[in-house]
């Protein structure tokens, strides 16, 4: 673990989480949530949890973003807040 690396990724994570929750377009929100998943994956690889990072790269950044997008296309794309 390197503190500066940690610091940068954690700040980016908070920014990505806030943007994902504040974007009005739900498709963009899903994509930014995918970015959030990749950042978490980086953080775990850096912490030494390689198995968890691998799972997160496949699940959090791949499958769950696709599931969100599938639901957004089957419902409404615009969000009120």
């Amino acid at each position, binding site marked *: *673990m390197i*503190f500066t690396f*940690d*610091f940068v990724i*954690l*700040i980016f*994570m*908070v920014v990505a*989480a*806030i943007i*994902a*929750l504040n974007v009005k377009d*739900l498709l963009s*929100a*899903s994509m930014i*949530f995918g970015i*959030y*998943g990749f950042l*978490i994956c980086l*953080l*775990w690889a850096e*912490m*030494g*949890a*390689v*198995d*968890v990072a691998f*799972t*997160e790269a496949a*699940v*959090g950044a791949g*499958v*769950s973003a696709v*599931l*969100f997008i*599938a*639901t*957004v296309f*089957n*419902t*409404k794309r615009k*969000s*009120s*807040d």
Partner: protein
Amino acid sequence: MEQLVEQILEPHFNFWIYVILMMIGLWAVIAKNNLIKKLIGLSIFQTAIILFYVSLGVKEDATIPIKKPTPIEYSEKAYGGEAEAKGDYAAADKAPADKKTDGKTGDSKKKKKAYEKINPDKIANPLPHVLMLTAIVVGVATLGVALAITQMIFKEFGTVEEDEVLKVIKGGGQDD
């Protein structure tokens, strides 16, 4: 300034950010109006908790939890009392295990092998990784259930906004 970073910021900064991420997620779950936004908030909440768990297992200057101990030549030293006195689990526990299976399977080759001592402080704690690995996969499965329920709500009410859904429910559902 340097002291501030080393003494206060560095030991607890990660935990602060986890709490902040948890606050963001919780706020989204309570206050956001859109159901999909609520689910994104719930996922952020979940990842904050998983992050907290995994970071409990972090050790300074530790490697990843994949370690194949290199065998050292068998000798009385590694096997006998000295190993046990040093707390050499690898060698000390090896002896009774070999005694038990002796004679049943041809262990004569294996008996010569002893492994170097593993320093547990240099390997990251694997236990939180295991717990959280399954939690992530189960999390995406349950997220799928939540998204299915969201689609069902959209089919019933024609919207995924919470206030509009509540309006239809309170109005007795005459909108259909």
